[in-house]
């Protein structure tokens, strides 16, 4: 237990030291890998623990980015204030839409969030102060080390939140909702509030990632802010690593980021197609993700994959 804790602290310290020793490209790669891991971890709260598969988390990412950018460009505020505005905007949106949308279950929830993300992107493209289709240009800040440490801090914070969830009464309630919402409700879980809190947490963390990314890339337009493939990545990385586990999303995000980085240097379109292939294979052969694979493989060897396949076959 304590050795595990020291190991984690050691890993975080080593990651934090990367800007001191690593090359510029390494730091830049680190920023994207860390922030996508944080996004996957945020998705994990709602999708992994609560069982509500959202394809609309990119909305909160986009709103976080736009809130930050609008406050900085139109309001001439500092980055800190801007980030606060972005989070507030995303959380307000989650609160507003969460009520009706969280009443939907299964595929209906997933599709509604997909629709929400499409609608939001279309609305923002029509707002003058958000730069319409053209986009916004943020003040330039040259300090990749800072963005790196911010992304790392976000990932650590997000993971601490998930670690707490995995042990708390709150988390037990979320898992009960995932396993059988009707039974959870009758057993005393305040399901509407628990689902709303999970959504707000996910929205808040995603918004911070969006704000950091907006300032880092200094340019923001609806297509990049509300990019639905980003949401797909969150889902795939979490499912690949192990949904509903503390470390699964990080393991999934880091391994898939590394593989796609290697492929992207060869062929960028094939890297994206590869994502699609990974998700199909992962869901068919290891629906519990890498985290469960470790356990299952030790027990059953290669049979683990075949058993998973047999379990859900027609």
């Amino acid at each position, binding site marked *: 237990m304590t050795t595990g804790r020291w190991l984690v602290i050691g890993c975080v310290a080593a990651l934090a030291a990367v800007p001191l020793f690593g090359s510029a490209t390494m730091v830049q790669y680190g920023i994207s890998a860390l922030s996508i891991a944080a996004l996957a971890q945020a998705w994990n709260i709602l999708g992994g623990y609560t069982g509500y598969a959202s394809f609309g988390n990119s909305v909160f990412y986009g709103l976080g980015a736009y809130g930050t950018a609008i406050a900085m460009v139109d309001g001439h505020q500092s980055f800190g204030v801007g980030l606060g505005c972005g989070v507030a905007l995303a959380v307000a949106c989650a609160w507003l839409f969460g009520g009706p949308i969280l009443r939907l279950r299964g595929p209906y929830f997933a599709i509604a969030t997909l629709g929400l993300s499409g609608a939001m992107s279309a609305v923002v493209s029509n707002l003058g102060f958000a730069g319409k289709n053209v986009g916004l240009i943020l003040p330039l800040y040259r300090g990749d080390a800072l963005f790196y440490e911010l992304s790392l801090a976000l990932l650590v914070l997000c993971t601490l939140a998930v670690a707490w969830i995995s042990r*708390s009464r709150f988390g*037990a309630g979320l898992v*009960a909702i995932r396993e059988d919402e009707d*039974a959870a*409700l*009758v057993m*005393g879980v305040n399901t509407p509030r628990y689902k709303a809190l999970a959504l707000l947490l996910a929205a808040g963390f995603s918004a911070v990632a969006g704000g950091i990314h907006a300032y880092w890339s200094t340019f923001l337009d609806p297509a990049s802010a509300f990019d639905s493939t980003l949401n797909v990545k969150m889902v795939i990385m979490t499912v690949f690593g192990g949904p509903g586990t503390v470390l699964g999303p990080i393991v999934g995000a880091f391994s898939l980021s590394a593989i796609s980085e290697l492929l992207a240097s060869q062929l960028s379109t094939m890297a994206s197609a590869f994502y699609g292939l990974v998700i199909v294979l992962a869901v068919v052969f290891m629906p519990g993700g890498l985290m469960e694979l470790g356990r299952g493989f030790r027990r059953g060897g290669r049979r683990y994959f075949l058993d998973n396949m047999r379990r859900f076959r027609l």
Partner: protein
Amino acid sequence: MSTPGSAPGSEREHRPASAPLFEVRALTRRFRGLVAVSQVSFSMAPGQILGLIGPNGAGKTTLVSLISGTLAPTLGEIHFEGRRIDHLPAYRRAHLGIGRTFQVMKPFPGLSVLDNVAVGALFGAGGERDRSRARDRARQCLELTGLDHRRDQRADALGGPDRKRLELAKALAMQPKLLLLDEVMAGLNAVEIDEVVALIKQIRDRGMTLLVIEHVMKAIRTLSDRLLVLHHGQQIALGAPDEVLRDPQVIEAYLGKRRT
């Protein structure tokens, strides 16, 4: 209410000794054209077992759902410990002390048997805040229902009779004052039924009030203090078991009319 499970005895003193724990007044539920439950009224004294019987489709499960809060009544009132609860959401009713089992069993399939039951201890009337203490209480409920040896198995790996026991253990862990049992004996053999009957009596002796839906007539007869019979959603009889089962209307409901 604010501190769940705090000395229910002291609360009771504020009411006359004969006050019912629970009362239903003219409860009605319609589904589009169909009236599933119509004008049902009854009350239950603390520590009583009320048997609820009726042919298939009589509205028994609907009635339980109305009481536990998974369905909203079209008309009528539900009172629990002197307060009206029919507008409260299901989880609030669980906090107040109403627990139920599902006829179509609803285990948390991916969780261990122990964690299944711990959910009841964490969120039920005796709301345990701490997860390890909730597990301790869950262990007690598993021992009571004879399921302790399976505590580390996944719930979806259990067989039929053990799933019934799990339903019961989950509801018990909530420490309800009123427990609604929806066919917990269906599919059990004679020996298992006797075990469950003994268990229900044991639960009652601890001061719990029970409403029991059952098709096993022998069991329900020995168990119930009173019987309520539903037929096409109508309450056609309410009283001592032997009297109710002699009632010609009840016999007709079960066996059909002699003359057309």
